[in-house]
């Protein structure tokens, strides 16, 4: 049995099902993200694990202990809230000490643990400050120290970086990963930010409409999304309607708006499908190597890369090219594009509509 075992967890509010038959296994020390748009049930799932919401059905087993009947205050989990939820009337030190006090840890033992926790988040020099006199990133660290000092079996992070500005968020991502690994604590992160989930997690669990849609390493989830929803939610993607003509050992044959293209073999019946192609996998090439001609509709300069919107006979496509300091095609120009057939993803048409 895994360290954290969530089985068939369901939460219904009146006639609305917020979390539907959610199951997840997390190994000790693992960092797993629950990723999804707002309203997908990820926060409700976290609240049930934390003990602030009662599940309608299903079970949560942590290290062999069934949490269903355990009140929130006895679960011993470390939680970092989106707003950090620091005690504003206490200093950093007092904030961190709170959980230890509740456990009756005092004297040198307490001082040592507080010192270690503040050291871990590199805030030892601000122990006597009040949260009000600190920056967002520093408050974030205090919240982490307060959650980790009680040596929780499980660390829950609820959108911990969403209140930080973009630059700081990137720094904190690295920092958060380091702290998590130093502490070796099993961690569950709830986020709607795919780059955050990819940067931090060992595995990503994508949720939609209260259901778990796909779980895997960030690489696998990005490379082999199971639906167009996931391919669009994790990074950018070109999704096009297509018809699967045949599929076999030599690959799949598809018809996209009258154009014949090939893709990797799939386990689907011929008929209507979706194809997904990542913008960075489409290349702008010489006319001789091109698969399709395309007209540049617009281009956006993003510093390290260019983003093109192209018009082709199979539909409009987004294309990303690394900025190599060369001249790039301008709007109105006609270019030729190509991609490798194995980079095409063929997805069932109907999974989108599964409620």
């Amino acid at each position, binding site marked *: 049995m895994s360290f954290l075992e969530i089985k068939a967890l369901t939460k219904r509010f009146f006639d609305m099902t917020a979390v539907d038959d959610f199951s997840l296994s997390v190994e000790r020390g693992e960092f797993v993200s629950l990723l999804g748009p707002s309203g997908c049930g990820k926060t409700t799932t976290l609240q049930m694990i934390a003990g602030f919401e009662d599940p309608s059905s299903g079970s949560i087993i942590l290290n062999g202990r069934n949490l269903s009947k355990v009140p929130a205050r006895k679960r011993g989990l470390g*939680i970092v809230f989106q707003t950090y*939820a620091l005690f504003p009337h206490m200093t950093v030190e007092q904030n961190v000490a*709170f959980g230890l006090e509740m456990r009756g840890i005092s004297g040198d033992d307490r001082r040592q643990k507080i010192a270690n926790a503040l050291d871990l988040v590199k805030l030892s020099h601000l122990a006597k400050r009040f949260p009000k006199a600190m920056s967002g990133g520093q408050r974030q660290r205090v919240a982490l120290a307060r959650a980790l000092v009680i040596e929780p079996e499980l660390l829950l992070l609820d959108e911990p970086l969403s209140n930080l500005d973009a630059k700081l968020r990137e720094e904190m991502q690295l920092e958060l990963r380091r702290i998590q690994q130093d502490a070796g604590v099993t961690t569950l992160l709830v986020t709607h930010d795919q780059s955050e989930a990819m940067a931090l997690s060992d595995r990503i669990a994508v949720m939609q409409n209260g259901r778990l849609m796909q779980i895997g390493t960030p690489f696998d989830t990005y490379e082999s999304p199971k639906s167009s929803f996931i391919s669009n939610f994790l990074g950018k993607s070109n999704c096009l309607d297509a018809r699967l003509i045949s599929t076999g050992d030599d690959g799949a044959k598809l018809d996209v708006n009258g154009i014949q293209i090939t893709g990797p073999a799939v386990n689907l019946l011929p008929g209507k499908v979706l194809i997904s192609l990542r913008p960075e996998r489409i290349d702008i090439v010489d006319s001789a190597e091109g698969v399709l001609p395309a007209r540049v509709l617009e281009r956006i300069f993003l510093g390290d890369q260019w983003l093109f919107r192209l018009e082709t006979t199979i539909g409009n496509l987004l294309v990303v090219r690394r900025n190599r300091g060369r001249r790039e095609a301008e709007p109105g120009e006609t270019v030729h594009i190509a991609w490798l057939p194995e980079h095409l993803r063929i997805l069932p048409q109907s999974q989108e509509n599964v409620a």
Partner: protein
Amino acid sequence: MNSNGKYSLIFNGLFTIFMVAPLVVVIGVSFTPTGYLEFPPSGLSLRWFRAILDNPDFIDAAWISLKLGVCSATVSTIVAVPAALAIGRERFLGREALQALFLSPLTVPTVVLGIAFLRLLSLLEINGTFIGLTLCHAIIITPFVLRLVLSSVVGIDQSIEKAAVSLGASGWVVFRRVTLPLIMPGVVGGWVLAFITSFDELTVTVFIVNPSTTTLPVRLFSHITQTTDPLIASVSTMVILFTVALMLLINRFYGLDRLLMGESR
């Protein structure tokens, strides 16, 4: 920093004069050496302040008002804090009705309340007693406490309390260590406002006092109905002094803007 125009300065100046003028007059009158109300005073004398000492019933009344203010403000705070927590964050049947009930003493004319309390206290056979007065005042001043506490309850990020729970705090510990400190500006502000309201309550009180529980406003009122000597001015000056001292004390230890605006730390 401040960019008040000429007209706004004039307006604010006039407004301040308008607010302060009655106090200046009362304080001025209290220093008169004459036996009648005169302003400006023809000389400076402490005659009417000495006269307070010759009228121990004023001093007794002041003590009763003080004790009554402290007791009724405390009683109403003890009732209003849990009520505000329930109304401010729970969703239950009759919540709106409960809130309306708690605020209703503000909307009922005080004369009507006075007659009602008189009948009620007579039925309970505690008319004119200190306990009866305390209960009636507590009812009148609860809306003030409730409103201030409610505004600070609504302003709390509830995840702060969840954080305390997740760290192992029981319900009572969360209240004492987290919730109460966070709503303290509202609680203290409400208590002080309630105390002041009770301290100068006249309309209701006049119905339900007896000679042994006469409060300062009632004592002053009955004095005015008989004579108009500068004694009332000197007593009033003492009350003003007491209030100013109270405000200075609060400002020193707590911050007046926090009290009056309900601003949290």
